């Protein structure tokens, strides 16, 4: 498109009949008339080599007709690098004389000097616009990534008898994946995985809104379907058109192993059982599409050793270099195989990377949440029945430092059993931390409340049971500490106790009777370390 400007003599002063004509008033600026690309006039101007007079010009061109209609007599094309950058349109001379050869030469010379400057200006303007656009996209992605990173859980819940793990890797364009863990009353845990359609800041904002709505609804309702229905109602009027959120919400009773869940159009969770992988099906429309949607609610009882895998479609819809999709069946077959070290997250991510190729740019966010039941209350109950030989029972008052009394007494009982020194030291640390937790959380640091310790042994293992008196705060969910965040001052330096306990012994189980908690530390008598 060519932009032009034209000066033309006025026949009459347009605004005032009484005003005396001035030299300026004899000229006027008229609207630029573009020469569309491909118009015969464009071809003519490009090949003209100088100004083109219109008086006797014959050419089938719509543009020419309009330009001529506007009173233009001479066109001076501005050509740079073979491209028509613009043109000067001139009406009749003020003297009414035709343009002379000298006039045309002068105008042609002027045009040849103006054209390169116009080309440069045009390029600079384009580059500035491109740079601005790149900067805008970059900033938008940064904002989107920041929103998501801020709102995703910093730590994972560590619940005795359960292992929870999660993985999130954003695509370059940052999609709308999210997951969340919501602590509920009575030791129940809410688990959320979701995906907002769209990418960038709009998706991140909807994700943030949806996450807040879910957290609030999770405290109001005990039923996952009611939570999703509630969030759907709240989201429908808020969400931009053509956007919606797929989301699975499950509530796990960590004591009983009972899982209740509802699904708003998200990938189905898989559970690896002793008999193979099953899908946990519950139907429901994605959130934010239509009001008054019902959500199916289902339950499943997770047995000890079973593992549930929640994924986003960034995994199942990833492609290999030949364009084949990773797909549900491949995911299912990966989940079916017990991974080394029981690390399902690493196993799925590795499998996916082997499929797509490690250096390929990720198409969409990848999110994975894994919940494994490591031991059940039934197991614990059986263990309690199979107490082995009780070696010692004692109590300590809930006073700081008394964990050392417990450690020394447990050590004295265990040393004769020949536990190797490395395992003995680990058990000592676990006992100390467990007793400290019982004093601080179970007994609220009240010295009049004691902590019970029982040491027993079977042929295979040494078992230390630590019981608080209840009434204090419930033992919090342990989180895998984020050392980087602690060192950066973003998190308290504390929060190592439950993590250490889990790392030190072979198994940790918990039971509750009345208000009192018993934590059972199990250390195998034979072990590599």
């Amino acid at each position: 498109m060519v932009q032009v400007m034209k000066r033309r003599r006025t026949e009459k002063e347009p605004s005032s009949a009484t005003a005396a004509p001035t030299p300026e008033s004899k000229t006027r600026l008229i609207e630029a008339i573009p020469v569309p690309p491909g118009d015969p006039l464009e071809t003519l101007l490009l090949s003209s080599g100088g100004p083109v007079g219109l008086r006797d010009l014959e050419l089938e061109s719509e543009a020419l007709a309009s330009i001529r209609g506007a009173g233009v007599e001479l066109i001076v094309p501005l050509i740079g690098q073979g491209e028509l950058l613009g043109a000067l349109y001139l009406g009749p001379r003020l003297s009414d004389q035709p343009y002379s050869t000298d006039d045309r030469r002068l105008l042609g010379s002027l045009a040849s000097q103006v054209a390169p400057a116009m080309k440069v200006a045009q390029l600079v303007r384009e580059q500035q616009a491109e740079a601005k656009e790149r900067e805008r996209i970059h900033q938008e992605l940064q904002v989107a990534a920041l929103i998501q990173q801020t709102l995703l859980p910093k730590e994972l819940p560590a619940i005795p008898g359960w292992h929870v793990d999660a993985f999130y890797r954003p695509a370059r364009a940052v999609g709308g994946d999210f997951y969340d863990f919501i602590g509920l009353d009575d030791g129940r845990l809410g688990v959320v995985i979701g995906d907002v359609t769209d990418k960038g800041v709009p998706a991140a904002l909807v994700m943030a809104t949806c996450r807040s709505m879910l957290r609030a609804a999770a405290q109001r309702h005990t039923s996952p379907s009611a939570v999703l229905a509630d969030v759907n109602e709240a989201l429908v009027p808020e969400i931009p058109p053509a956007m919606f959120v797929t989301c699975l919400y499950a509530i796990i009773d960590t004591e009983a192993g009972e899982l209740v869940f509802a699904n708003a159009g998200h990938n189905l969770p898989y559970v690896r059982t002793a008999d193979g992988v099953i899908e946990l099906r519950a139907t429901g429309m994605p959130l934010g599409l239509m009001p008054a949607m019902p959500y199916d609610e289902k339950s499943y009882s997770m047995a000890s050793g079973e593992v549930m895998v929640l994924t986003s479609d960034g995994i199942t819809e990833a492609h290999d270099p030949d364009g084949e999709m990773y797909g549900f069946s491949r995911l299912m077959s990966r989940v079916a195989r017990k991974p080394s070290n029981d690390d399902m997250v690493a196993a799925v991510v590795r499998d996916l990377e082997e499929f797509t190729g490690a250096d390929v740019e990720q198409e969409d966010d990848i999110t994975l949440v894994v919940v494994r039941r490591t031991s059940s209350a039934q197991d614990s109950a059986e263990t309690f029945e199979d107490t082995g030989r009780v070696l010692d029972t004692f109590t300590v008052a809930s006073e700081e430092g008394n964990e050392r009394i417990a450690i020394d007494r447990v050590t004295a009982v265990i040393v004769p059993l020949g536990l190797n020194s490395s395992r003995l030291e680990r058990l000592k640390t676990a006992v100390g931390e467990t007793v400290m937790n019982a004093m601080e959380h179970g007994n609220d640091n009240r010295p009049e409340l004691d902590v019970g310790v029982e040491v027993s042994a079977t042929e295979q293992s040494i078992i230390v049971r630590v019981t608080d008196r209840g009434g204090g705060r419930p033992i919090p969910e342990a989180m895998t500490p984020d050392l980087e965040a602690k060192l950066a001052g973003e998190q308290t330096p504390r929060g190592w106790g439950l993590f250490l306990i889990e790392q030190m012994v072979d198994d940790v189980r918990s039971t509750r009777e009345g208000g009192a908690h018993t934590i059972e530390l199990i250390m195998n008598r034979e072990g590599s370390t």
Partner: protein
Amino acid sequence: MESLFEATVAESDGGPVVVMSGTVNRAAKEALEAAYHEATSEPGRVLLDFSGADYINSTGIAVIVGILAMARAEDRVVAAFGLTDHYREVFNITRLADFMTIYDDETAAVAAR
């Protein structure tokens, strides 16, 4: 039962050493931080000597994390020695060992300067 925590500062060929003894728990915070500040009046590496630390619990780990955070904020290298095999394992599990080099003993720590 509980051995009181003490922290003093000694000089070595490998730089200032914060020498700890007793129980490293939350009660050690003030003394350990004071010794750290004394040892770090000059730029350069600081060594933590755990030889005399007979017990370190999770609240003590939190105190050490606090020291590492201070060191990190001023770009100071922290190295440690004198840990038992068990606490060395604990420092590995908690990843504290990712943020300070752990040497077997003072000789190795000084030599590695």
